[in-house]
């Protein structure tokens, strides 16, 4: 059950972020003013993949909540951090982002830090 929850959480997080990143780049630059947020809500309502991304976000959130009810945070947080690696790799190959040495090194340092904070 524990690993099923981890797999559901990681899969939902990765799918959610890939969909959100892809769709938000296509939607163009957004702002966080009241008008900007209203426009963003309108954008979400018009884009099915974005709605799917938000739904995946909800699945990931509830999977994490269920996980921390039975497992210690020191397991749940590093387990959730595994999505970080998968997402960075997929950002390169699916979203075609250019990940240079500095960004890769920084991401690895952050990953190690997240595991240490959670562990």
């Amino acid at each position, binding site marked *: 059950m524990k690993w099923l929850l981890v797999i559901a959480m990681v899969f939902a997080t990765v799918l959610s*972020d*890939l969909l*959100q*990143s892809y769709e*938000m*780049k*296509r*939607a*163009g*630059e*957004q*702002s*966080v003013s009241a008008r*900007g*947020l209203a426009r*963003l*809500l309108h954008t*979400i309502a018009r884009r099915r993949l*974005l709605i799917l991304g*938000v739904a995946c*976000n909800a699945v990931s959130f509830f999977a994490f*909540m269920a996980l921390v*009810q039975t497992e210690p945070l020191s397991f749940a947080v590093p387990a959730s951090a595994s999505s*970080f690696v998968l*997402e*960075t790799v997929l*950002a*390169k190959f699916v*979203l*075609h*982002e*250019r*990940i*240079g040495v*500095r*960004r890769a*090194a*920084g*991401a*690895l*340092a*952050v*990953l*190690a*830090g*997240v*595991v*240490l*904070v*959670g*562990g």
Partner: protein
Amino acid sequence: MTNLNARSGGVMEAPQHSSGAALKTYFVLLFFLALKAAGNSWMAWGMKQVPERMSMNPALYLRAMLNPFVAMGIAALILALLTRMALLSLADLSFVLPVTAIGYVIAVFIGKAFLHETVTRQRWLGTLLIFGGAALVGSTSRNTTGTPAVEKTK
């Protein structure tokens, strides 16, 4: 499409129109971090006051939302979600992921300062690594796919 901004081979080179957009990106990032920290703190504080243990029963979650701190926490976290989406319109996913991990650093400081939690040496080291890594990623060009705002009229 992906090679649109592959100019001069400089992976870390900032886009030409960047200074205003970069400021906007960091402003949205700070706004997101503040909302996330406030939302999580209110949520944690409120949930401690809810007597029932959560299960698969949705009625328990709905009842927990009647607690004002839980309600405020949820509102802040929904706003944080929207703000993160705005951030993803401004920057790469591989940029947003590490820089938003600064949230872990803030959580450790809030735990130490307000909840008087003990922070172990291992956790301080992790915090330092996150901060250094995020700063390193923050120094790279935040948008490398060069996707313009092409579908505004769609």
